[in-house]
């Protein structure tokens, strides 16, 4: 028995009903070593109050399944009775969980894109009617002015003036809706699921339109756009990156502040730098911001996947993301190559068919 568990390809613990360690196999010693846990503290890799579970498993003869999160690892724990002892099987499912959350996230983005494009399309028809009707109203008002002698009818003149104002106001409102719908379409860009040469500034601006309501009067936006050539990329993916970084920038600023978006180029690449005057990232966390699942935002605020996905997207484009951060704020700089070699392009094509991006 001992020999069999010893060579088992995953970690197994055996302990008695009092929770004393009877044996531990090679894989389990390896895991404990990796986590820096001494053997006599093996309870740390088990879910809380595990002793009562062991007791129940041994005494009642039932099996128990649980999960434990420790140091970025996700362990699936199965406990079964074995004579007077409990056998505890441990499976490190961290990668599976990562894979799953990434899958969920990319599905979520895809359905969000579909929804956005669908909504944009559905809004277009009634919006077209409203815009046209409004145009008809102001044309009719103009014609009425010519028909009636408004000089001698002050009240009519006043009413036509009000109608004019209202029509103008309606125009501003419909143009606003149309630009939001345009941004939604541009952001989703479902019609462009392939590589395409696009104006990066257009992507930045349409993403800005979508986060504008978050800025309100609290955050001042400064745009410093340089002359940029069109970049060959997956525009909908890059827009997602801009969105993730902008939302983070907004959330990093507690009160009033500024966000600066600066673009520049050199002979080989373009740079998009998004800076915020926020609280910055603590030096010890700087290395973790691209880790999947890492978040400092509370439960329900962030998934902790935004930046890890952004990183992957930019990497697939042959580029990189650099971060500078101090207590005065953070700057995320996205660097994208101007020319991509053919080889990396084929590699990206394969990437885009693999939902895990591995």
């Amino acid at each position: 028995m001992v020999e069999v568990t010893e060579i088992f390809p995953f970690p197994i613990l055996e302990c008695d009903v009092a929770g004393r360690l009877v044996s531990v196999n090679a894989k389990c010693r390896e895991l404990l070593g990796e986590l820096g846990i001494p053997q006599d503290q093996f309870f740390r890799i088990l879910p809380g109050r595990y002793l009562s579970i062991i007791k129940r498993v041994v005494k009642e003869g039932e099996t128990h399944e649980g999960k434990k999160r420790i140091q970025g690892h996700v362990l699936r724990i199965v406990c079964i009775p074995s004579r007077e002892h409990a056998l505890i099987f441990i499976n490190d499912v961290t990668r599976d969980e990562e894979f799953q959350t990434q899958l969920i996230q990319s599905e979520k983005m895809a359905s969000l894109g579909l929804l956005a494009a669908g909504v944009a399309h559905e809004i277009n028809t009634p919006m077209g009617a409203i815009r046209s009707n409004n145009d008809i109203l102001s044309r009719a008002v103009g014609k009425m002015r010519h028909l009636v002698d408004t000089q001698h009818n002050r009240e009519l003149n006043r009413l036509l003036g009000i109608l004019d104002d209202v029509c103008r106001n309606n125009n501003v409102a419909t143009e606003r809706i149309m630009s939001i719908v345009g941004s939604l379409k541009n952001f989703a860009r479902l019609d462009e699921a392939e590589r395409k040469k696009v104006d990066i500034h257009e992507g930045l601006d349409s993403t800005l339109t979508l986060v504008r309501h978050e800025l309100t009067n609290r955050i001042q936006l400064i745009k410093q756009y340089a002359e940029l050539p069109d970049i060959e990329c997956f525009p909908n993916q890059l827009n997602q990156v801009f969105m993730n970084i902008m939302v983070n920038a907004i959330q990093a600023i507690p009160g009033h502040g500024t966000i600066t978006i600066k673009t520049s180029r050199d002979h080989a690449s373009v740079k998009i730098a998004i800076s915020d005057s926020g609280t910055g990232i603590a030096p010890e966390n700087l290395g973790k911001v691209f880790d999947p699942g890492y978040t400092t935002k509370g439960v329900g605020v962030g998934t902790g996947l935004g930046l890890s996905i952004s990183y992957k997207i930019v990497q697939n484009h042959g580029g990189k993301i650099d971060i500078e951060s101090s207590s005065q704020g953070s700057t995320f700089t996205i660097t994208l190559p101007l020319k991509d070699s053919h080889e990396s392009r084929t590699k990206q094509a394969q990437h885009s068919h693999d939902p895990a991006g591995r």
Partner: protein
Amino acid sequence: MSREPSKHNIPTILLVDDEEMVLTSIKSFFAIESDYSLLTYTSPVQALADLEQTPRSIDLVISDYLMPEMDGLTFLSKVKERFPLVPRILLTGYADKKNAINAINNVGLYQYIEKPWDNGNLRLVVRNGLEKTLLLRQLQNKILEAERTQRELSDVHKDVMRAFA
């Protein structure tokens, strides 16, 4: 199906869109900015049936693209069989320019207009389209006239030849 040109008549536009609000809006626009007569339908199938029943002169056709019974391209190509000379305009909310451009080539569209449309632009396209109809009809008449003259001339020629024979 060539009819006498309706030079002094009011131009008739056939407009099909499954959304009543689009029909009302475009109809109202041309009511205050033109003297065109508009025939509007929410159903392309009904529009075709009516054209079959009561033959009448149509000078221009505007159709929506996405409609439940029949898509705009099918409708316009059926209209083309009946009125080959009449300009056909596709009104599309379908955000796919590539499709529309293909359609222009395949079905022989005169123009496509994207939704949400601009009234000023719509009027311009319609006015140019109607002018094209008018010119084509005039040209066709001139050709007919020329053919007739040539026939008469050749008759005269024959008579002359016979007289001298």
